[in-house]
């Protein structure tokens, strides 16, 4: 083999080696770029998804908290209005209670009223024997009315005249002192309490009890009668 041929062959092999290396390097570069993009996109997508979820959760928390706050405030507002309504009704009831104090001061009116209340109680109980309790200050008046009440009851009920025992040991509470209808001291503005002889049936026909019942029954009607219906004002 000639030297020139050998040298040429070696050079050819060297070129081949270099070409192979450069081709491989090129492949690596191309793969690098592809993997660069893939890697970057994957990282971006994964992290962005996490971040987005994180902020969506935070935003939801804000919304929920805001709704809770508003709902709480709305409830507080409604309660405030209801409280004002209750206060207004309470004021009317207090005024009515004060008005009751004047009822028993009118002797003539109170006398008839007391008799009518006794008769009403007898009609409700329809018992042959009745225990009657009243305020100590009303005792004389009640004693003077018992016979008349019994007679009226007999006529209205077409029944035999009942036996009425006036309790002279236990009395209803006295009128409120100084017109203090909001005190915690028990008081009675007037009227009577009747009970069956065995004490199992008790009918409380005092002015205060009547006011309580009428207050619950009649006030809604009063609201209807009034040009403005109070119950609707609370709507928010």
């Amino acid at each position, binding site marked *: 083999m000639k*030297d020139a041929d*050998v040298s040429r062959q*070696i050079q050819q*092999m*060297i070129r081949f*080696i*270099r070409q192979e*290396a*450069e081709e*491989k*390097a*090129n492949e*690596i570069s191309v*793969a*690098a*770029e592809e*993997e*660069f993009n893939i*890697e*970057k996109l994957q*990282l*971006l997508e994964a*992290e*962005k998804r996490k*971040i987005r979820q994180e*902020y969506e959760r935070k935003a939801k928390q*804000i*919304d929920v908290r*805001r709704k809770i706050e*508003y709902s709480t405030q709305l409830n507080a*507002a409604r309660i*405030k*209005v209801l409280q*004002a309504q209750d206060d*207004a009704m309470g*004021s*009317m*009831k207090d*005024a*009515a209670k004060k*008005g*009751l104090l004047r*009822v028993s001061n009118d002797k003539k*009116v109170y006398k008839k009223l007391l008799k*009518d*209340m006794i*008769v*009403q109680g007898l009609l409700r109980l329809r018992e042959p024997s009745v225990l009657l309790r009243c305020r100590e200050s009303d005792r004389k008046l009640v004693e003077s009315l018992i016979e008349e009440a019994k007679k009226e009851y007999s006529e209205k009920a077409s029944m035999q005249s009942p036996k009425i025992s006036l309790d002279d040991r236990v009395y209803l509470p006295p009128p409120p002192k100084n017109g203090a209808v909001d005190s915690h001291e028990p008081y009675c503005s007037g009227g009577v309490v009747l009970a069956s002889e065995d004490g199992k049936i008790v009918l409380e026909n005092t*002015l205060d009890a009547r*006011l309580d019942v*009428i*207050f619950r029954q*009649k*006030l809604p009607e*009063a609201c209807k009668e*009034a040009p*403005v219906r109070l119950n609707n*004002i*609370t709507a*928010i």
Partner: protein
Amino acid sequence: MASNRGQGGIQQLLAAEQEAQRIVNAAKNEKLARLKQAKEEAEKEIAQYRAQLEAEFQKKVSDSTGDSGANVKRLEQETDEKIQHLKTEAARISDDVVAMLLKHVTSVKN
């Protein structure tokens, strides 16, 4: 001499192989660096994205705070108006209601 010429050729081939290996290794290193750069660039963009979302979130928070404030104000105003109206009407009808209550308390139907 012939063996000397052969040795020279072999040396050239070895050198070429080494150069080839260097070229390939350089490409591999560049690839590694590129992948690292991918991670770095991704992290950079992620930081920007997070900053953007944080800014939007903070804006939402301050907007909702303002909204809440306005809502509370309006709610308080409406409530006060309702209560005032309630008081006015209650005062207007109070005497009639009290009179009606007393009338029923003192009316006994037998």
